[in-house]
């Protein structure tokens, strides 16, 4: 496999920052707008991500409430905070613990996709629960905003070039080269 060119992708950190900022902005409507409307025996109920989790907890489904809380609330925030940390730590030529930051980057890369859980869940519930007018589940606009936030966050992580963690403080000609 051809080695990657020694130069860093130019503007990668700026692009990652812009995408992360856009994702953070989309998290606001994603959390404020309803994501799901449930009709059971004629009783209608509209949930945001947070009230959905509270409802699961209230029903005694603690493990599921925890899983949804992790995937839909904690991971998106953690991921953006982690990305902001990486971007700030690698600004300029300040010294940083590259090995630790690399571990954070790998963790962010791994957890990102799990935020898609709520999107798959709302879609599946809406497709499955269609019992006439009495029992139905319908998606609401918040889930689209949430999906956009998740995609932007994943793109921001992909855009971030981890070599900036290792190569930034050194002069450009210090990249390893074969003899």
């Amino acid at each position, binding site marked *: *496999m051809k080695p990657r060119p020694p130069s860093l992708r130019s503007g990668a950190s700026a692009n990652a920052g812009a995408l992360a900022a856009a994702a953070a902005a989309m998290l606001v409507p994603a959390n404020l707008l309803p994501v799901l409307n449930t009709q059971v025996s004629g009783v209608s109920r509209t949930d945001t991500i947070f009230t959905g989790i509270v409802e699961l907890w209230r029903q005694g489904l603690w493990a599921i409430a925890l899983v949804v809380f992790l995937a839909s609330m904690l991971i998106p925030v953690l991921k953006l905070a982690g990305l902001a940390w990486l971007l700030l730590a690698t600004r300029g030529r300040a010294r940083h613990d590259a090995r630790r930051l*690399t571990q954070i980057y790998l963790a962010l890369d791994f957890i990102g*996709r*799990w935020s898609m859980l709520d*999107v798959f869940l709302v879609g*599946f519930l809406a497709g499955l*629960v269609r019992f006439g007018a009495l029992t139905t589940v319908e*998606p609401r606009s918040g889930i689209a905003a949430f999906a956009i936030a998740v995609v932007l966050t994943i793109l921001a992580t992909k855009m971030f070039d981890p070599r900036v963690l290792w190569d930034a403080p050194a002069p450009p000609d210090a990249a390893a080269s074969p003899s």
Partner: protein
Amino acid sequence: MASADPLLTCRICGHEHRPVPLGPGERAHCVRCDTVLAHGSRLGPDAGLAFTLTGLLLAAPAAVLPFITAGKLGEKQTGRVFTGVEGLWHNGMHLLAVWVLLCGAIVPAALLTVLAGLLLPARLGRPPLQGRLLARAARALSDWAMPEVQVLAVLVALMKLGNLVDLTIGPGFWCYCAMTLACLLAWRSFEFQAAVENPARARPEPAQP
């Protein structure tokens, strides 16, 4: 480049290493950032291909067989792999429906197909057609293949609906779970073996200055 060996470049820090043979179960870490670069498969060099073909075989039943049957007051609804897509599409969220279709079904199937295109010719002793392009495509596809997230979503849906409707799990869901596992293992085998041009036979050492 003076070196005759293909160089193994760390995907994280860009440090270059000279590959050397790697025994079963051995892992090679980057000398600079400690990221795992390659590991010798305990299951032999054909494991990746075996997982890929298994995943492809399971994709068809996973796509057509029922995941879940939900019943309420004598009425029945069947959930399949495309149920989430239908749910979003029928409620006007067309773009999101396409996105869910891509991440949950199309991209995993495409990833398995690309891996088969890479590994099958190699097993038959022929160079894969457009190997470098296919390897890049596989890496790009692996970022967006999320069958494991869909499995978790269906499990959460099952728990959530448990006291609302009567549920029966169908064979399609088990096929999808098995396909997901095969897809993950196939990608993992490929990712670490494809780090060098001679698959599963490399242990990196620091590049000579």
